């Protein structure tokens, strides 16, 4: 019986060590990516009149959709956009749709510093560009104020996060199209590139 108790005790002690090791692995794992839509989530062209022609929401317009991507400050992001081929009223009635996208990776939500996607659908970029960003970088302050300037949720250590920002905009063209509400869904996928 004594031997059995010792054996159980030996089993328990290593298991505690295993738990500790598990936690250490968790710390070393790169922070996940948190994508947040800061605007209303609807790229809204508003009310358009038949034969109005091309209508655009440009980068600097208030109607631009703004999305923050929070992740490991050492990582590059790979962003893929999948726009609808058109905005649809129904299968037979569609409006052409062109999506535009830009990103800001300087640690702040700043459209004027945004860079256009090299092509309209995908981009790979560092989540924080050391050469263009704030001096000192957001995580240097170990700031947890969550003010949307890319320096929230920084708890020190190797898991410091920073935010990049995406801006979505676009254009559509209205000809002699049927009246009604045309919609489409833009899918956004974000992952680490390295």
């Amino acid at each position, binding site marked *: 019986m004594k031997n059995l108790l010792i054996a159980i005790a030996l089993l328990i002690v290593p298991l505690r060590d295993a738990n500790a090791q598990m936690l250490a692995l968790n710390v070393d794992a790169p922070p996940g*990516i948190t994508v947040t839509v800061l605007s209303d989530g609807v790229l809204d062209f508003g009310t358009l009149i038949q034969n109005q022609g091309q209508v655009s929401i440009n980068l600097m317009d208030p109607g631009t959709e703004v999305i923050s991507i929070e992740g490991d400050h050492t990582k590059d992001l790979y962003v893929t956009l999948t726009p609808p081929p058109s905005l649809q009223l129904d299968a037979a009635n569609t409006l052409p749709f062109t999506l535009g996208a830009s990103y800001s990776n300087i640690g702040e939500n700043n459209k004027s510093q945004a860079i256009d996607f090299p092509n309209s659908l995908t981009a790979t970029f560092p989540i924080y560009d050391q050469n263009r960003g704030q001096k000192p970088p957001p995580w240097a302050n170990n700031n947890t104020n969550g003010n949307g300037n890319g320096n929230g949720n920084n708890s020190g250590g190797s898991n410091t996060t920073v935010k990049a920002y995406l801006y979505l905009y676009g254009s559509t063209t209205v000809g002699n199209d049927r009246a009604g509400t045309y919609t489409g869904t833009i899918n956004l996928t974000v*992952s680490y590139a390295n």
Partner: protein
Amino acid sequence: MKETVGNPMNPFDPTLMQRIVTVLLLTTACTIFPFKMIAQDSGTSRISITATARVVKSIEMRTIRDMSFSPVQPSQQQISINALNDANTGKMIAIGNANAQIRVSFVRQRTLTHASGNGTLTFTYEIAGNDQDDQASAELLQADNRDLTLNSEGRYYFWIGGQVNVENAKPGNYNGDFTIEVEYI
């Protein structure tokens, strides 16, 4: 010497130690790999944004009739057409999307020019509007109205009248345009 090797109750038994190590390895494996999966999963995020546009018909303005003036008498100082009840009013219809909100604006005063080019008159417009084809229940519109709605058939009716002082007017014909703007809100 009593042989203890192979006794499962002996914690120092190599066989037991192997089992412990095996259990530890399995436990560690079970705890590590799920966390790796979570890290990979959390390394990719997906969201969706909706793009939308509401297309409405162009607003068509139809003139049903022009304003009609009786010949002006020499003693007459002013011509007046009451937009709310005069049969001489001009009449127009705006046709667009059913139940759409519209904004109506117009320039209240316009200059009419004598046919010879010499002499002008200032016409002050008065407009009544109604979503029903009923002049008597129409309301007088201000120069800029935002709270109007096309009816269920997409129509809104206008009656156009006004006043002009002809006391010092030179005899002859006077012409001028009237502009009314109707747009969706």
